[in-house]
Each structure stands twice: as C-alpha cells, then as structure tokens.
C-alpha cells in the first residue's frame, strides 16, 4: 500500500465518478463539467502509468481545448434541447448497462493477464515520443496523416458551422 495505490484510487474515483455524473446529470453544462473531472482523472491515471507527456497532453487538449469547444456548443444550442426528464427509458438503459459492466469486469478479473512481477522504472517519455513521431522510420507518416485529418476536420467544421449561420429556415 503505497502512494501509487492511493493515487490510483483517487484518480480512478475521479474518472469514474465524473463519468457517472455526466451520465446522470440532467443539465448539459453540469455534464460537461463532470466530463472535465473525468478527463483530469484519466490524466492522473496516465501519470500513474508513467506517461507524463500524455497526461499533459490530455489536460491541455481535453480540458483546455475540447471541453471549451463543448461549452461553446452548449452556449449556441439552447438547453431546451434536453428533454425535461430523463425518462424511464433512460433509467432502464442504465440498468441494462450495469450488467454489461458487471460481466465485463468479471471477465477481466477472471482472465490472467500475465502481470510482470516487476515493472520497469518509469522514465521521461517526451524525448522518445518526439523521436518516434518525427523520424521517417517511426510514426512520421501517421503523424502527417493526423495533421491532414485535423486540417480536414477544421475546414469541415468551419464549413458546416458557417452555412448554418446565415441561412435559417430554407431547406
């Protein structure tokens, strides 16, 4: 029982709790902030797993970027979009999701994953990732593909959002 376990408990509680809150809370804004908690929890788990660069990226991108995006989205779409009550259907759904979770966990727990007895010491990952991403032998091509993807998403998002603004009702 070390700090590692403590940190894991804390961060996993944050991630799962945030997710649950996002799932159950009626208000979209609250859901979004619950999501933020969940993201931060996952970032913490990354740290726990020795992925420091990833943790920072997670915080920057998710918490700093994507979430803001969601907040802007929520500002542009009125809250009436959400139905007044979650409804019984939603409840039933969640009840249906619970056994899935239970069975999944049971399966995961029963399986043998061949845990190594001793994990290598975590080391800084920034240099490794940087080299991997920017050398032609490594992940350079996927990296460039990702940039193209982002560019396309950017253009597409701008295009979609721009067309929605001036035209109102005409189909």
């Amino acid at each position, binding site marked *: 029982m070390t700090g590692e376990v403590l940190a894991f408990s804390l961060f996993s509680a944050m991630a799962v709790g945030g997710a649950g809150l996002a799932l159950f809370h009626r208000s979209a804004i609250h859901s979004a902030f619950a999501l933020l908690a969940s993201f931060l929890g996952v970032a913490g788990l990354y740290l726990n797993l020795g992925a420091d660069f990833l943790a920072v990226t997670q915080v920057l991108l998710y918490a700093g970027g994507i979430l803001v995006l969601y907040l802007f989205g929520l500002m542009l779409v009125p809250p009436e979009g959400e139905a007044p009550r979650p409804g019984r259907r939603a409840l039933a759904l969640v009840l249906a999701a619970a056994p899935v979770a239970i*069975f999944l966990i049971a399966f995961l727990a029963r399986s043998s994953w061949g845990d190594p007895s001793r994990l290598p010491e975590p080391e800084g990952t920034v240099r490794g990732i940087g080299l991997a991403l920017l050398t032609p032998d490594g992940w350079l091509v996927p990296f460039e593909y990702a940039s193209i993807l982002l560019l396309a998403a950017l253009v597409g998002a701008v295009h979609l959002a721009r067309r929605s603004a001036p035209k109102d009702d005409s189909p």
Partner: protein
Amino acid sequence: MMESLPMAAWVLAIPALPAAAWLLLVLGGRRAAPAAPWLATSAAALSALAAWVVFLERPWEGIPGGIWEGPWSWGFFLSSGGDGIAGLRATLSLDAISGALLPMVGTVAFLVHLFSVRYMRTDPRPGPYFAGLALFTASMAGMLLVENLLFFFVFWELMGFCSWLLIGHDSLNPSSPRPEAARAARKAFLTTRVGDLALLLGMVVLWKGFGTLSFTELAAAGGSAGSPPWLLAGGGLLLLGAMGKSAQFPLHVWLPDAMEGPTPVSAMIHAATMVAAGVILLVRSAAFLPDEILLAASVVGALTAFFAGTVALVSADLKKVLAWSTISQLGFMTAAVGVGGPGAALFHLHTHGFFKAGLFLAAGSVILACHHRQDLGGLGGLRRRMPMTWVATLVCAAALSGLPWLSGFHSKEAILSLALDGAALGGLPALTACLLFVAAALTPVYMFRMVFLTFHGEARSTEAREASEDSWLVRLPLAVLTVLAVVSARFWLFPVEEAPASEHWAGVLGTTLALGGVILAGLLFLLPVLSPAAFARFFGPLTGLARERWKFDALYAATFPPLFRLGGRAVDGIDSRLVDGLAHGIGRMAEAGGSAFRKLHRGRIQTYALLTLAGLLLLSVTLLLQGEAG
C-alpha cells in the same frame, strides 16, 4: 486471252449494266428519280444487246466441257485453306443453257422496262421502281451466268427479294398506299422462302455428299451415285426449292396474289425472271437427281398444270387468269424435266417467256386504257378501240394454246411427246401424261375465254367504252413480242430431246385439243351458243372448288399463321411469365430477406448504440463462459 477479253466484257455487261443502273439509282436517291426510267431502260437495252451478241458469238462452243469461263474469279468464303470451302469460287461462266436463255431474258426485261416508262409515268416513286427492276434483271442474268449452286442460290434469293420489293411497290405509294400489296408481297416472299430454305438445306446435303456445288461436277458425280438416302433427301429438298420458286403445287399460292404488283412487274416475274429460276434449277440438276425425284417432279408438274388450268377457267380477273395460266405452264416445264426432257422444259420456258410477256403487257395496256379496271365482267368490246393490243393478245394466246405454226406449238409438243413416250411405262408416268393432255386441252379454253371476254362482245363498263390505245411506248413492246411469239421457236439452239415414237401422235393430239379448246371457248363466250352458266352447273361443286382455288389459300391461311402466332404467344408467355418470373422470384427472395433485416435499421442512432451495448454484453458473457470451460 487476247480475244477472250472483249467477250468477257460483253458477258460481264449483261448483269453489270443493270446492276450499275441499280447502284446509281440507289445512291442518287431522289435526285436520280427523274432520270430513273431512261437510265434503267437504256441499261436494260444495252444488257439485252450484249446478250444477243453473246448469243450470236456462242463462245462456249469449241471449249471442252462446253463452258466458257470469265477471266476473273475470287474465293467467296476463303481464298485458300479451310476445309474445302475455298473451292467455292465465284466466276462468270457461260454454257449452252445460259446462252440459249439470255436473249429471251434480256429482250423481255428490256421491253418490260420500256413499257414501264409509260405505265409508271404517274407513279410518285419511279426511282425505287426502276432500281428494283434493274436489280431484278441483273439478278436473273447473274443467275444464268454462274455454274455453282451456291452462287445460283445467291441470285435466286436476290430475285426473291426483288419480287418482294416490286410486288409491294404500291404499298409504299405516299398518296394512296395499298396495304394489300404489302400483304401479297409478304406472302410471296415467305412462301418462296419455305422453298428457298429447303434448297439451302438441300445444298448443304449435296455439299456434304459430293464435296462440290459446281453443277458440272455434280452432274459428273451424280451419274454414278445411284440413289442413296442422302441424295434422295438432297434431291427432294432441291425439288421443293424449285417448287417454291416456280409456284408449283402446293407452294403455288403466292403467284396469283403477286398480281398486286404493277402489271409490268408481273410480266417480269412470270416471263423472264423469278418463276423461271425453279425450272432452270431443275434443268441444271436433272443430271444428278435420282429417278425417284424426277418422277416426283413429273407428277407435281402435271398435277399443277391441270389444277392451275381449272382455276384459270373460272377466274374473274384478267391478270389472275394469266397468273394461273403461268402456274399451269410452269407445271408443264417441271413435268418435262421429270419425264426426261430438260431441253424441252427450257424450250418451253423460252417460248413461254415471249408470249407470256406479251400477254401481260397487253393486259397492262388494257388496264392502262381502262383506268385500272381489270375484272373480266367490266371489260369487253375492246377489239376496235385497241387493235394493236387485241392482235398481240390473240397471237400470244394462240401461241400459249399451242396452235400450229406458232412458237408455243413446238415447245409444248416436245413436252407432250416425251410424256406420251413415258406413259407406256404405266402407273404414275401414265397419270402424268393424262394430266398434261387434259391441261393442254384446258389451256385454249381459258385463254380464249379471256380474249373473248376482254376484246369481243359489248363493252360492259364506261371505262371499257371510252378506252383508247396508248402511245408507242406501249405499242412497240407489244408489236415486238407478237412477232417473237410467232418466231421464237426458230432461234432456239439448245438440243431438245426427241421422242420419235410419239412425236407424231402428240402433235396431232395436241393440235386437235388446242383447236377443240378454241372452238369450245368460242361457242361459250364469243357466240351465244352454249351457256357458261349451264356449263358451270354441269361440273357442279367442282366449279365452286376451282373458284376457291381448291381451298388451298384458305387452308394455309387457317393453319400456318395462326399456328405460328400461337407459338409466338406461347413462347412470349413462357418468356415473360416463367423464365423472367423465375428470375424475379429469386430477386424477390433476396428482397424479402433484406426487408427482414431492414426492420433493425430504422435510422435511430441510439438504437444502434443500444445494439452495441447488447453486443458487448453478449461478447463478455460468451468470453466468461468460455473462460470457465477452458
């Protein structure tokens, strides 16, 4: 070779000039139409001239085998190699048969062209008409100038096409089209095509049997072949082909209907071209046809001669009488080949060509003068108004009836004597002879019935009363053909078989019958001595049967077209219901399966997510159970 080239040019000119006229007219289209009559006619005139030159030069004489061959030839299917089909080479060739017939064909064709210039003056489509006539002439000449059955067949079919085109000419008239003409043309084409396809099959059989289609080689090989079954089949099919083309019973039905065509076309078909083809085919193949087939030919010919004669007796239409008389005379020729007289058959074809053309052109003159009135009931008394036409008809009818000193007498006597010679064998040959003599007796009766009803007595309609003879374009061909009807027997060069034993008796009997027939016709129709109605009553139901053409037309009309139409509808039904239905059924099965699965895809995104969850559940449970089992 030096001297054969001019000859080759003459021979080539016979078919090539009309063919060139045809090509010019077809390519020229409407622009060439005004020039069409004289273009085609001059081509036909030059072609006839060439035919006479060739006839007088007789280039085939002195050549071993008696066949003059042109300097050109090409492999039709193949230049070389293959399995023998390269041997089918197209070339011009000229022998005694073609040489003897070419002048008649050329002259008649030219005169028909000339007559048409006047007859078709008001026709709105002179271009197609004269193009068809020119192609017709070229095909007939071409058919005479090949000695290979395959190319013979090519021209044979081309003539069928031309006659279809020309019989149906009036159905394409833009101002007053006559649908009957199209129907008659179709009937002619299809009836002869039955024979043509039989001939095609016969050709295949002969090719496989003899390995050649050259008439000379076939004749050489056929003599020793005996009569194996395949030769019987091949010969029978050949005979069937000839029967279709020459309108022999029972494939005769098309020829009377073909009267729907313009009258000069009838002259062309009946005298010089189309129907002659069947006889020429039989003559050319007589040397290798087995005896059984020749016997069948004689019986068919005699039967046709007799049967068509009876129908001609009661026909109420000027042209129909002539049509049935043609069928009857073709029966004589077919029978002549059957009884061993191909020369006699050709001789009769030659003389018949002139006087039948004369008769048809005279009929055309009458029709022209009477404004397309051609029923015998509405004519009469034209003798004084149309003297030239009357003389031509009289002389030609007399020649057709076989009256002495005229051309028809010689040729018919040759056939009758041969038949009489064979009759000694008894059985079918005797029957043939009997039928032929009866038919010979009928000929003058129906011919002079037509002459008397048309030209003598009182005019029975205003058209007939006001008729007047037309220009020289009509009279000149009639005059020429009248002269030729008298003298054509003098310039016949093909040897005619002789039957010394019966020659005398046949001549006497034939003359007696002919004279008797003329007298009988005179008593019935010229002088009111005997009543035609009483005569008709005397023969009772036979008259009715003859009037209805022995019911063959009705029989065919009631069987074949409905049968084929029924078959067509059945196949169509099977095709659209059963076969296509099967395909549709398979398609529908797939569709049903698809729509069952489609129920899952209603377009609700969240249902899909739910299904993902369900899938996950299924997966984890399965893995869990599997883990337990393992």
